[in-house]
């Protein structure tokens, strides 16, 4: 463990609420231990701000083990920072140099209004899951667990897709602020399993329609999402989503949900 410390200049996005315009404020962050995580670095900065009577930087976080998906910010232009398959809480300061300037911004997307500073409202992702990201089984209805064998390779592909932590980095990385990687991960997880097939067509149509309604953009194959995904979710899942969607649209009796045009709902959520 190196006891080394570095001095940093932080340019942090400060925004009081969804209606505030927001601005970058520059902070001098001196004597930051290189062994600290990025969030611990922010803790140190906030501790100093609080003692000086200033408003600390708001940011979301919880597990600090890279699994809950609550943390996330754009670091020097990259969601969760520069390290591959690493959430912000698992990014460590030893990757930075003494004297570096670090630009820290919230995940920016039309569907993710800023609550304060780096904390954004990602309930739009919940709404997409509510539109169909489940298998309709009531408690008590399940057959015996081993009555339905699942090919090991399918189970593993389903698992890989299911590891999505719902952080929204894919949306923040996408020039269209599309949630296609997020949606495709859930569609793939369930479509690959026999339990998920009965509702596959309905699910694909409903989740995509909900994504559109909430103000997320569409996919134009920039592949930025795959690069920034902290769980390494692959864009082949988007191909699978497209296949499921087209199959459902063309050959299933399910109707494509149509929502009234107008302002996307996510923008109106505010504090409700």
């Amino acid at each position, binding site marked *: 463990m190196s006891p080394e410390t570095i001095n940093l200049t932080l340019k942090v996005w400060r925004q009081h609420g969804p209606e505030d315009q927001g601005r970058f404020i520059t902070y001098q962050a001196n004597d930051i231990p290189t062994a600290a995580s990025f969030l611990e670095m922010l803790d140190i900065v906030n501790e100093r701000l609080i003692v000086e009577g200033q408003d600390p930087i708001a940011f979301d976080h919880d597990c600090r083990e890279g699994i809950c998906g609550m943390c996330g910010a754009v670091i020097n232009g990259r969601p969760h920072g520069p390290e591959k398959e690493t959430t912000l809480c698992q990014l460590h300061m030893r990757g930075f140099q003494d004297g570096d300037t670090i630009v820290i911004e919230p995940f920016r997307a039309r569907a993710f209004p800023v609550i304060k500073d780096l904390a954004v409202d990602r309930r739009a992702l919940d709404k997409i*899951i509510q539109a169909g990201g489940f298998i309709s089984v009531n408690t008590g209805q399940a057959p015996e667990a081993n009555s339905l*064998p699942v090919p090991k390779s399918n189970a593993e592909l389903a698992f890989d897709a299911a590891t999505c932590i719902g952080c929204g980095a894919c949306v923040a990385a996408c020039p269209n602020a599309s949630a296609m990687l997020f949606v495709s991960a859930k569609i793939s997880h369930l479509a690959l399993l026999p339990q998920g097939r009965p509702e596959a067509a309905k699910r694909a149509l409903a989740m995509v329609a909900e994504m559109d309604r909430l103000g997320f953009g569409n996919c134009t194959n920039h592949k930025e999402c795959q690069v920034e995904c902290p769980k390494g979710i692959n864009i082949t899942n988007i191909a699978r989503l497209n296949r499921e969607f087209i199959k459902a649209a063309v050959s299933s009796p399910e109707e494509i949900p149509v929502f009234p045009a107008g302002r996307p709902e996510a923008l109106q959520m505010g504090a409700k």
Partner: protein
Amino acid sequence: MQLDAKIPGGPLETKWDRQRFELKLVSPANKRKFHIIVVGTGLAGASASAALAELGYQVKTFCIQDTPRRAHSIAAQGGINAAKNYPNDGDSIWRLFYDTIKGGDFRAREGNVYRLAQVSNLIIDHCVAQGIPFAREYGGLLANRSFGGAQVSRTFYAKGQTGQQLLLGCYSALSRQVAAGQVTMLPRREMLDLVLVNGQARGIVVRNLITGAIERHAAHAVVLATGGYGNVFQPFTTNGMGSNVGAAWRAYKRGAGFANPCFTQIHPTCIPMHGDYQSKLTLMSESLRNDGRVWVPKQAGDQRRPEDIPEDERDYYLERIYPSFGNLSPRDIASRAAKFQCDQGKGVGATGRAVYLDFAAAIKRLGRAEIEARYGNLFQMYEKITGEDPYQTPMMIYPASHYAMGGLWVDYNLMSTIPGLFVLGEANFSDHGANRLGASALMQGLADGYFIIPYTIGGYLAGTALGEVNESHQAFTDAEMEVNAKINRLFQIRGSRSAASFQIDLGHIMWEYCGMSRNDAGLQKGKQLVADLRQEFWENLTLPGSTGEFNQSLEKASRVADFLEFAELVISDALARRESCGCHFNEAFQTEEKEAKRDDAQMCHVAVWEYAGEGHEPIFAKEPLVFEFVKLVERSYK
């Protein structure tokens, strides 16, 4: 305090059947007339919300995170137990029951634990039907692995992310009910008080964490599934940053008994502290001890790099003290031994609070490729956090607080001492006694939520006279005033220290005096230090901003205030338990081999504490534990 566990009579195997028959039912048409509040969306809370909504109840569900999918159940790694006996290796409901009772050092109820084992198989069925991608064999059937010293393979798993997958399963079921209009989901809300009307739990007061608004929510019953209190040891804990005792503590102050608060599990293999800025510790799978050798330098204060310390100047203390179990000694033993070495000044690393876990011998014996195949992802995670390559230099590990066996007291129906207040999952005390076995937490959370509360809450609602209560009731007004007064008091202190700094100080006190190895003098001292710190908190806290906004400092301060009160109860409970059992080790009660020495004649009970008002010692009550079906024996590690 009246403690009637309401365990049905008769043979163990038929208790739950009998209870389900005897509990009154709410007719399908009447369920929609009942409103139920669920606080918390981990495995227990999300599964309860979904299962109750499926039945037709009107459910309001609250969580402190931005979405229910963040709850800390998500961080559970290893797996979930069930008595399926798929490997044909001798498992049974009875064996799972017995292992759990014995693992808990005979401080849990037979009736509850047997029911847990009974419903374990239903959980696996349900999770598979939900699409949980459990590990499978080539034939497409479910795979099992061994876990936590059990002699059978009964653990179902999804790589090292079982908790995540199970939680996302509950979350999907919950989301389906939100879409169906059966659940109203209220994220970023923190419960700040429980509201009682005529002695019954009829609602909660919450703070909207985005706007700061104080909100009232009324219901016919309240379900708490708010997790454990391991953060009383923060930063010496694997708990998530938001996990807190607040909701349970406020319920305690409204009259709910708190059971066995001193039963806190310490996990031996976590990445140690490396600086005073550190917020928490990260768990490293216990499986590493299969091939890693634990050691410290023989010479206290040895500052050399581990590679430079010759073999004969190293103390492989677990192999030396426990020759039969060696590096695979049980969790509590391994944790205490590491602490003991560090207390003697032999700890390593920058802070001296760490021991080596060395793979050099295993790499020499098996080759690097084999070690990489077995532990590659763990080695990678270790390197990411510490910046050191464990293939080249020994890992450093240290124990950390992990799970709370103690919690709010509940009867067989999972109802607390307050009628209409139910408590599920880690937040209750019910099933793990003085020590929880690996892969049993996920099992209990889902058992409580999917398969127990849907029956027992119906029995309560059908059999209880519940008057009309809404949010304008005086009890809500009073509770809201108290909540506001407490928040205002925090802002008026205007001192100079942050809430976070108090939490860290509290964690240090608890870890030092009420941690892995306890003694009366230390506990007394700890109790005084906690009282002093609490006093300083109320004189010297500084709190930025105001209450009418998104204010994470206020959230923290409110939680720390509760922890500062709760910590004293943990210590009082540790002092009152005149024995060592499971995770609770009082140095005055040990065998000649320094093992925990139970006192079944005097201490075979659940210790329950009742709030007696500000400035008064809590009232102590006992629920005797009666063992009709198993014989109490000494846990042997030899």
